[in-house]
């Protein structure tokens, strides 16, 4: 196993979440949550089921619009942002229940991930002019590098719908990586995997962080996985932040232990 990424290289805050509150009708999902994510760090958000982890990710990536609070990415504060806009700014994500284009091949799925990097207009594409063709090739190279990185060469041409679950998760990570994001949001990347697949995925996440320098926010409810992977951990419970710190600090925190053991509020 390679050593976990060097702590020294972690830089200035890349993402700052301030005082976020989100409610659906009368149901409060998040309440006054603040934390930051630093450049090149692996930041985990953990918490029991229903703690608001996925909602938090959806706020960062613009799927939900919080009633209160702001999200600042690369120093730019914003209240409302669309997923499409978030992607443009350099945020890529995966989903808890895999959202891949099932009818398309692995290669096409990854090429879609580069959608935003492509510049040729519809007319050039429609006529398949030289620039459009060159652009395809150039992006194909980038995508091939991701395929090599994730060791999925053998399924390059396979329709995603035919792949087993573990591989689909890997392809989804690949599609996010193809966008060369600055911030990568992973929603339970290891849910439903067997031990070997989990180990593979952990290795890929660390390698992404280490070799590409990508900042990663990941949600997990499997505590052991998170503790090995992340530099810092935010703990949510019933929509509130109850702890924030290094894995060791969080592990010893009484509120966290109570939340995980289910002490009555």
């Amino acid at each position, binding site marked *: 196993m390679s050593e976990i990424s060097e702590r020294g290289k972690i830089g200035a805050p890349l993402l700052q979440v301030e005082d976020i509150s989100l409610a659906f009708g009368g149901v409060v999902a998040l309440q006054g949550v603040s934390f930051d994510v630093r450049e090149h760090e692996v930041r985990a958000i953990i918490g029991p089921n229903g703690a608001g982890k996925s909602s938090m990710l959806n706020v960062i990536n613009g799927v939900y619009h919080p009633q209160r609070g702001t999200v600042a990415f690369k120093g730019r504060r914003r209240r409302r942002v669309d997923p*499409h806009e978030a*992607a443009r700014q350099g945020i890529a994500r995966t*989903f808890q229940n895999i959202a891949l284009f*099932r009818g*398309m091949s692995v290669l096409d799925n990854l090429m879609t991930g580069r*959608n935003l990097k492509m510049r040729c207009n519809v007319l050039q*594409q429609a006529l*398949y002019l030289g620039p459009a063709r060159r652009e395809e090739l150039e992006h194909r190279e980038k995508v091939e590098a991701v395929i090599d990185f994730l060791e999925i060469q053998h399924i390059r041409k396979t329709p995603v719908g035919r792949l087993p679950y573990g591989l689909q998760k890997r392809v989804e990570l690949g599609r996010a990586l193809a966008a060369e994001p600055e911030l990568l949001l992973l929603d339970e990347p290891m849910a439903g995997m067997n031990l070997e697949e989990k180990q593979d995925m952990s290795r890929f996440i660390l390698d992404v962080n280490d070799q590409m320098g990508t900042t990663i926010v990941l949600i997990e409810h499997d505590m052991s996985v998170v503790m090995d992977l992340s530099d810092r951990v935010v703990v949510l419970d019933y929509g509130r932040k109850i702890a924030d710190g290094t894995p060791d600090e969080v592990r010893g925190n009484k509120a966290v232990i109570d939340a995980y053991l289910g002490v009555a509020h």
Partner: protein
Amino acid sequence: MQFFFEVLIGGLLAGVMYSLVALGFVLIYKASGVFNFAQGAMVFFAALTTVGFMSMGAPFWLAVGLALAAMAALAVFTERVVLRPLVNQPQITLFMATIGLTYFIEGIAQLAWGAQVHALDLGVADEPIGWLMDHTGMNISKFDLVASGIAATLVAVLALFFNKTRTGRALRAVADDHQAALAVGISLQRIWVIVWMTAGFVALVTGLLWGARNGVQFALTFLALKALPVLVLGGFDSIAGAIVGGLIIGASEKLAEVYIGPLVGGGIESWFPYVLALGFLLVRPEGLFGERRIDRV
């Protein structure tokens, strides 16, 4: 036997035209899950606009260009006014909205260009091909052949566009999973506009070909009904299905008319496709090429 082939080929050529109409439906259904009732009206609108500009003295290609621009404007309008406000509404709501759109388009078209029948001449005569007539004795219309050629080219270009370009990939992506498409930065609105423009382009080609054959008239809107059995046969979400479905419908209705018609007193051409489609619904509801939905518990 020679007569059989003559009927078969005539039917297949007519079928290509049905395919074209069905293609417009499939494009929109694939990308947005909307059954666009207005496709027939769009065909009518496109053809009428072209003829209208020509009657104002515009040369043919300019008129086509202007009609194309009108279809693009219509696409943008539809996305803004109809689709965007109805995001995340049930399919039936969207379907009803397209019915409304149908009346709107028909109204606009007749308001702008009047309701009389216009002739359209594409410069290809609807007459038998002499060489074939001489050598095989078969009566195959030159116009049908050219029209089929145009339609086939259009289909091939669309297929390439879908499979080889970024926008094509994005279109397929949106058809596959909206949420995922959003996450990779595909703008749904943009894609919808492109899809409706493409459907408009297809409608224009369809309108010109049918219009040249039967005159540009209100009856073109009923083409939508003709596409229905094609879609049932081929599946609502398959381009290949639209093509094969169209060919089957075209060939079988002509053959049925000639060979079964006399037994029941004729005139079955107009309803035979629907019977065929109905039978098909019982056996394979997702269509020949449609995606089989497997509901997992």
